[in-house]
């Protein structure tokens, strides 16, 4: 996760101070009801506070003890709400500036008889048409229906270079809050105010309307169940102790309860979720729901577009193969001349190859005629005096030269076959009726992508390359890039069918796309990532939008999803494992007065029963604060197989969670008795 830009430091007072204030505000029991573990802790804290007040009034010798327990129980609640407040605070500044922009938006709406009226952007309706001129902000999400303009989208993407937005095609979507820099466009509003992209972004960053995700709900059920069990255990202990005549106070029972229930994960759970979304935002990806982020961690199959993701966008010339009786230099020079006025990337790559690697000098560049490439002729070239140079699809060039398919020289045909078999594209070159040879155009696989795919495979994720190429070409590139499967000559329907088939088999699919024809597949996929530069339809269908419009982002998104789930699991395991030490601290302390023999269970040799209980409560509170950075940053994540991840995390958080509190409680106990706190 090297691209962790814009991550505010944890010790930044600009975040900590408002977070502290918010943490206190979050103590409202109505709000805490959402989090049963912390709610129970608050009830315990309130109960012990009442006991403390009673002790204070009666001048009981327990006053100092119950006062401290009450204080630390309150701290436990406060630390939990603080964790959530810090997590929320990190995105707040960004949300504030977005909100400011939004509140200032006005729209010039087209009215029936022509002309415009100026209204606040918030009263726009879907279907309204607005006019936006240079220098103005676009009032809402919509589609350009007329005109072309350059738009500055830095308010949402952070990218300052303007982008072109024009009516029709795949670049028609505009986002509210972005600024038109030149020209004038008419925009049809497609999203009601309040559910626009910026609104979604604000909601996401603030975490205010955050819905619990399915996995978070399941985990909350587990934590609530455990809380219920321990609540019951603590009530029962009061009765069990009664048998031997021991009367346990509400103070110690509350302390026992709070230390046993999973306050660590209970306190950090929502912070982990918010931080996960925040991490995504910092990667310039906006998710419509936390559900999608979780699903990203579960993805089994990645559907990746070949172009731009696996290969560089364009095919490049890599070799010249001369026909019999033609020298390679002659062919290269002809190809170069034919391509001089060809501004396509392929044409430019031919020029570069010929002049670079083959050292051909710049030829005469005055032409009698320039023949442009068209879909019908499938060739292009130049006329220069006697010469009529053409390059293009093999059958088209052969047809131009008047050579029958079977009449072409054996050597030439073999070269063409070999290029096609290797996944390349053969471009024939001819000068009038004379066949000169063939240019090898080749997809160049991005460096390092093969290693990425190997990593994914180790994580159990299959990669599927989607391409419009024919199966032969596709197979060659697939094997070079090391993908697990490919979908050749893929139409949008093929993609959709492939996704459905994989989902039938119980697999979760992620894909990215940008065109309107990708929309059905984006909607069907479990994780659909649309490019910010894509059409409105694609952005609506997807459950994530990548502001950088980088197709490789999918791989990072999977990592973020996994890290989110791992952080939850690790802290849950840690929290549950902690209970062992807490039992050994508190149980002997509760009963040692009745049964002195139970002192043998005091494994940590804590100095006194009261100190043991207080130390356990303090440890329980402090561990929440200590783990806030981990909850926000996420546990260390390296792509590897499940078995290796499990072994590592089980060792660190499971075994660590067993051992650490023994040491921690002991250290606190030494401090408590040194300071004579009890």
């Amino acid at each position, binding site marked *: 996760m090297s691209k962790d830009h814009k991550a505010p430091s944890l010790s930044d007072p600009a975040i900590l101070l408002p977070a502290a204030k918010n943490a206190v505000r979050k103590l409202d029991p109505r709000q805490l009801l959402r989090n049963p573990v912390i709610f129970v802790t608050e009830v315990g804290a309130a109960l012990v506070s009442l006991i403390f007040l009673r002790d204070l009034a009666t001048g009981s010798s327990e006053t100092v003890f119950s006062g401290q327990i009450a204080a630390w129980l309150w701290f436990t609640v406060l630390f939990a709400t603080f964790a959530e407040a810090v997590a929320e605070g990190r995105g707040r500044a960004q949300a504030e500036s977005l909100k400011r922009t939004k509140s200032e938006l006005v729209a010039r709406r087209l009215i029936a008889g022509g002309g415009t009226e100026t209204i606040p952007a918030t009263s726009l309706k879907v279907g309204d048409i607005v006019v936006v001129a240079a220098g103005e902000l676009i009032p809402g999400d919509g589609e350009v229906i007329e005109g072309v303009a350059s738009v500055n989208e830095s308010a949402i993407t952070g990218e300052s270079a303007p982008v072109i937005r024009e009516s029709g095609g795949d670049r028609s979507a505009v986002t509210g809050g972005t600024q038109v820099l030149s020209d004038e466009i008419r925009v049809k509003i497609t999203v009601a105010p309040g559910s626009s992209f910026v609104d979604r972004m604000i909601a996401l960053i603030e975490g205010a309307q955050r819905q619990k995700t399915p996995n978070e*709900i399941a985990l909350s059920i587990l934590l609530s169940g455990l809380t219920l069990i321990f609540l019951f255990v603590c009530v*029962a202990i009061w009765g069990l102790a009664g048998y031997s005549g021991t009367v346990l106070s509400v103070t110690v029972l509350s302390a026992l309860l709070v230390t046993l229930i999973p306050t660590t994960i209970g306190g950090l759970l929502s912070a982990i979720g918010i931080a996960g979304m925040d991490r995504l935002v910092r990667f310039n990806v906006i998710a419509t729901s936390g559900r999608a982020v979780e699903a990203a961690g579960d993805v089994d199959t990645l559907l990746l577009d070949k172009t731009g993701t696996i290969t560089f966008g364009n095919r490049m010339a890599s070799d010249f193969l001369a026909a019999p009786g033609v020298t390679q230099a002659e062919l290269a020079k002809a190809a170069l001349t034919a391509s001089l006025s060809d501004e396509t990337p392929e044409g430019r790559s031919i020029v570069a190859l010929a002049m670079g690697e083959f050292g051909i000098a710049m030829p005469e560049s005055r032409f009698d005629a320039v023949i442009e490439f068209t879909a019908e002729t499938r060739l292009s070239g130049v006329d220069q005096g006697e010469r009529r140079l053409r390059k293009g699809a093999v059958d088209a060039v052969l047809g131009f030269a008047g050579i029958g398919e079977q009449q072409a020289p054996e050597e030439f045909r073999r070269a063409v076959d070999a290029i096609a078999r290797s996944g390349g594209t053969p471009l024939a070159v001819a000068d009038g009726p004379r066949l000169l040879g063939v240019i090898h155009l080749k997809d160049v696989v991005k460096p390092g992508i093969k290693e990425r795919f190997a990593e994914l495979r180790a994580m159990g994720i299959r990669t599927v390359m989607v391409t419009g190429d024919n199966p032969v070409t596709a197979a060659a590139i697939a094997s070079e890039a090391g993908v697990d499967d490919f979908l050749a000559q893929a139409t949008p329907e093929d993609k959709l069918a492939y996704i459905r088939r994989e989902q039938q088999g119980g697999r979760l699919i992620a894909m990215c796309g940008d065109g309107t024809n990708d929309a059905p597949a984006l909607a069907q996929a479990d994780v659909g990532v649309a490019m910010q530069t894509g059409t409105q339809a694609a952005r609506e269908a997807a459950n994530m939008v990548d502001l950088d419009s980088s197709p490789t982002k999918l791989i990072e998104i999977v990592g973020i999803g996994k890290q989110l789930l791992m952080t939850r*699991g690790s802290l849950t395991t840690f929290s549950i494992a902690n209970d062992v030490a807490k039992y050994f601290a508190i149980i002997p302390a509760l*009963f040692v007065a009745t049964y002195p*023999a139970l002192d043998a269970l005091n494994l940590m040799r804590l100095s006194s029963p009261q100190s043991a209980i207080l130390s356990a409560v303090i440890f329980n509170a402090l561990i929440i604060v200590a783990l806030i950075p981990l909850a926000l940053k996420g546990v260390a994540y390296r792509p590897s197989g499940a078995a290796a991840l499990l072994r590592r995390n089980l060792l660190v958080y499971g075994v660590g969670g067993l051992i650490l509190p023994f040491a921690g409680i002991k250290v606190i106990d030494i401090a408590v008795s040194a300071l004579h706190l009890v």
Partner: protein
Amino acid sequence: MTLIGWLQIGLLFLTVLIVIKPLGLYMAKVFGGERTFLSPVLGPVERGFYRAAGIDPDREQGWLSYTLAMLTFSVAGFVALYATLRLQGILPFNPQGFAAVPSDLAFNTAVSFVTNTNWQNYAGETTMSHFSQMAGLTVQNFLSAATGMALAAAFTRALARSKVSTLGNFWVDMVRATLFVLLPMAIVVALASVAMGLPQTLAPSVTATTLEGAQQVISLGPVASQEAIKQLGTNGGGFFNVNAAHPFENPTAFANYLNIFAMLSISAAMVYAFGQMVGSRRQGWALLAAMAVLLISGVAVVYWAEAQGNPILTALGVDPALGNMEGKEVRFGQAMTALYAAVTTGLSDGGVNGMHGSFTGLGGLVPMFLIQLGEVLPGGVGSGLYGMLVFALLSVFVAGLMVGRTPEFLGKKIEGREMKYAMLAVLILPLVILGFTAVSAMLPFAVASIGTSGPHGFSEILYAYTSAAGNNGSAFGGLSGNTVWYNTTLGIAMLLGRFAYVVPVMAMAGSLARKVKSPASAGTFPTDGPLFVGLLIGIILILGGLQFFPALALGPIVEHLAMLAGQTF
């Protein structure tokens, strides 16, 4: 502890290990509806049952109708058994002329046998007629065991299948479990028992002349037939009051061996059958490994604690060489008593060949703790398997997130619904055990039933509710349980322990069955390796056992520590 003792223990586990695979494969066939070598003989009988009851064996049930069928069947079984006990006086085969069983005791006993607990608040030889023993208790020994196996088979199908709403047919599973598994094995074990000297007669008693010349009347009855299913079905309800410590229930060292072997074999093989049915034998072995580690540790602790003896008695001049022999049969000794105690409680059997209440504090803690872990080591026939699977799902959920995916078990995603049912199920044991124990410990008339003062008396109450809620049925001894309070509350504890547990478990099965079974990949949490076994053991101990720690500290733990300190109460 002696080498020969350990060899005996090792030999028993080895023989069980040998039968696990063939018996497991056989049971997988039985519950898969396939033909077995017994089909030519039993097939027509099976079809005859379906015809007579008007059941279409091919019509499967969803989780709810499966569960309702099971509950209806159990209620009918309870009513039949309760009526048998109450009408005992006018029913045949009552040579001793026993009167009707009192209503609270009849309630307790009927619940006890229907729930596969077999807690006995009565002495068989002085309470039950031969008819009650044969047509009442022995019948329920078969049916309650078959019920457990049927439920386990239904749960197994939920994990084996993909996107279905049905779990099998309860009536078919019951018939096949009884006819193809329990009955043939019970016949073999009963005949072997008769050969070893167990009585199988309708005569009431035999009169013996003792060495001193006194006349002693010794009760007899159809013992062998009841003993066989008592062990095979992990029931544990003995014909005689002292259960398998009685020479007519457990005459020889070899009979003792057969006892333990019989109770372990079906439960353990059921786990293997599970692996076979879900298409992963390794998964079956992994669950068995976790069970074996905990069970064998239990045996070792009891054996060690008992072999150490009681320092207070040693100080009084008792030879410590034999260890603590109080409450043990000399013919079985330390090793075989320790093995029996751990297996009977790890298994929800509840038969005993020594008195658990006479063990040292630590030795008595183990049987109690093994029951509190949820009777999953390997537990009652069938019930142990589904109990273990609940723990497996919990382990997968807690730790599975650590691999960065929604937790999955055998390709089924574990989500909110499954967690809800799992938590409802695991809530039952602490609720019932700690709740009733706490209430009884506070009620003077309930405390009056205990046989010993101090922590041991507390252990007696704790053990009774533990045994009832865990559907184990073994007793700690000392507690006079035949009172209205204990008959009623223990009966309720048994009902909750069985049915309040199994209903959410079956609801979970219904939810799991509907899920699509995703294929495993390198990113899937591996649930069949040693790492998972270790994790599962940890989760069983922490989520299943730790909540009983305070209660155990006040009972057996403090008793043991006090004994070491020479303190008595």
